[in-house]
């Protein structure tokens, strides 16, 4: 007996232009493979972290690293490890997690695989506040920028969200994006104006604007860590609702997800994570955009797994980029924001070319 006639698969192919992604064999579609993959990624992260502590203008062998970590002493190695390397590595991990997960939530929330936390105005808001801090309040170090940047990011994303949700049907993806672009443009113009009017402001601002892990101690880490932890935990619990909403608001409601609550919580998560990350190290683009894509290429569209993998892969990218930045122009340094984009972009493009990109 044949099944009742439905639209032929040909027609569905015709309908979406033949865009069925073929799943390669190594994609971890079974639960067990995903767990193994995650564990392997964690191990890779551990290796990268070790390298990050070992490598720099002065190379410290891993064995010594471990001994100094466990038993701090007065040697120069110990000082370097504890004062310089550990803070920036730990900060790199935290910021990586924050940016990656913010991006994953952003893409799920807007149902747009091109979404980046910057779209919500986070980066522009943080930058504007920092410029105000520099030019009006005379702040000039990373710790000083932090409260400004965080406040600016929060205010900007709230404004974008409010504009985007004005009207009857609330903050739909298109409206959020349009509002984000408009706010970003206005704020960028303000930044340009203020920096052009005062060269000193521009001088300080341009070094903050590329995103850097250097010159930041554990105090910065402790200030942002609570936000990142809370945000990350909230993000992980949102995975289920985001899955439901991924197929459309109606289907989501039918599955029991609350559309408004998920949207508000997602917005809050993005604000917390992206705001904290940008406040700590300056605007780093591309991590939030590209890592969720890579995670999705491995795990498929299940947001819970995407979030988990993103939380591990993003720090690998960020800390790895930081390592490279420290080595490549030794003894000078290349800011991590620059390196992330320079190595991340070609890899991303190669990924886009190699397989039919899985859409959200």
């Amino acid at each position, binding site marked *: 007996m044949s099944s009742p006639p439905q639209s032929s698969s040909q027609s569905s192919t015709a309908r979406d232009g033949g865009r069925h992604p073929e799943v390669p064999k190594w994609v971890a579609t079974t639960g067990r493979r995903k767990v193994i993959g995650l564990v392997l990624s964690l191990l890779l992260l551990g290796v990268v972290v070790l390298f990050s502590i070992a490598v720099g203008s002065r190379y410290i062998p891993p064995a010594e690293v471990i001994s100094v970590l466990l038993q701090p002493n007065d040697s120069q190695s110990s000082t370097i490890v504890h004062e310089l390397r550990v803070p920036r590595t730990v900060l790199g991990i935290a910021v990586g997690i924050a940016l990656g997960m913010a991006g994953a939530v952003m893409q799920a929330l807007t149902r747009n695989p091109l979404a980046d936390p910057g779209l919500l105005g986070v980066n522009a808001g943080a930058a504007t506040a920092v410029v105000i801090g520099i030019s009006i309040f005379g702040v000039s170090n990373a710790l000083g920028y932090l409260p400004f940047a965080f406040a600016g990011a929060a205010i900007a994303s709230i404004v974008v969200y409010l504009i985007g949700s004005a009207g009857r049907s609330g903050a739909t993806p298109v409206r959020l994006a349009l509002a984000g672009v408009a706010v970003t*443009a206005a704020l960028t113009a*303000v930044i*340009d104006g203020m*920096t*052009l009017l005062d060269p000193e402001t521009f001088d300080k601002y341009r070094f903050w604007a590329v995103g850097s892990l250097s010159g930041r101690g554990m105090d910065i880490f402790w200030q942002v860590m609570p936000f990142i932890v809370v945000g990350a935990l909230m993000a992980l619990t949102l995975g289920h609702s985001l899955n439901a909403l991924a197929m459309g608001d109606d289907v989501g409601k039918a599955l029991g997800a609350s559309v408004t609550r998920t949207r508000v919580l997602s917005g809050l998560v993005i604000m917390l994570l992206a705001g904290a990350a940008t406040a700590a190290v300056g605007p780093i683009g591309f991590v939030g*955009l590209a890592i969720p894509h890579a995670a999705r290429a491995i795990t498929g569209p299940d947001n819970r797994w995407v979030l988990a993998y993103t939380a591990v892969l993003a720090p690998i990218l960020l800390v790895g980029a930081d390592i490279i930045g420290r080595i490549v122009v030794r003894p000078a340094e290349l*800011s991590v924001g620059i390196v992330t984009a*320079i190595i991340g972009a070609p890899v991303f493009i190669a990924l886009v*070319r190699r397989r039919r990109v899985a859409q959200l």
Partner: protein
Amino acid sequence: MTGVESKPARPLPVAALRWGSVSVRVTRRPLIVSVLLAIAVFAVVVVSSFVGDYPLPAQDVLASLLGNGTTATDFVVLDLRLARALCAVTIGAALGASGAAFQALTRNPLGSPDIIGFTSGAATGALLQILVIGGTSLAIAGGALFGGLASALVVYLLAMGRGAVGYRLVLVGIGLNAFLWAINWYLLISAKLEDAMSAQVWLTGSLNGRSWEQLWPVLVTVLICLPLLMVASRPLGLLEMGDDAARALGVRADRTRVVIVVLAVALAAGATATAGPIAFVALAAPQLAKRLTGSVAVSVLPAALMGALVLTTSDLVAQRLFAPTQLPVGIATGVVGGLYLIWLLLSEWKKGRG
């Protein structure tokens, strides 16, 4: 049910102007809006001739405009103010049209030449000239032109291949944009402060010092490419119905898209080489025009006129607001354009449309 009626019950709501066998479709509201926009642009240009740092009595300005002025007033009115205003008109029109083309192509209100990496590439080319090679302003313009076209080409080549090209084009564009952003900022932070400042001025987009010799290249570009773009965009509305429906009507989908992209990039190139990457005009002008004309989709001519209006007004504001300091026009377009779009979106969404 299928009885053929010999005469329709009432005329179709489709209007056209006819002379003999020639007929041209007209839609009333877009036509009126376009005319009003053109008048507004003209008015702003005239006003720009009358205001400036150097105070001139109104009748002297009028004399110069009519061709009867002295050499001194002619220099100020014509070479400084009028030429600059005309530059603003032309560049604004080019950016508005280019933005409209990209938005119609990508069916996305956020479409702009940025997506194919053009703006970042132009910036890279210009920054290399300013910070590394140390070229003249002509060399900077050339660098911007070359950089922009090269990156658009790179994005296109990298995105070619089997499958959904359009989507891949956007993604590759995003990748290249990130890559070039990193390079540009590396140049900015490695340079001396004074050099970085002058680079930043270029990056913000400025019409300072633009006169007749900067006007001609972009004017010629606009006069050639804009009408061609208007003609080439006719099938765009059909493409919106889906490739199959459009091709069933005889549209050559791929060829149309390529032609439109080339024309749109040429327009953006002319504009950016002359004045640097001016923020937001290409993005906002088509959307503002679309909401004013009430039309279903973005269209090239109203967007061009709106772009001209936005840029000339912004330049006027940028020149006078903090006089005698002249702000780069890109700042004004960013603030004015952004705020206006926010206001428009808010008022429209509260009404329940959009």
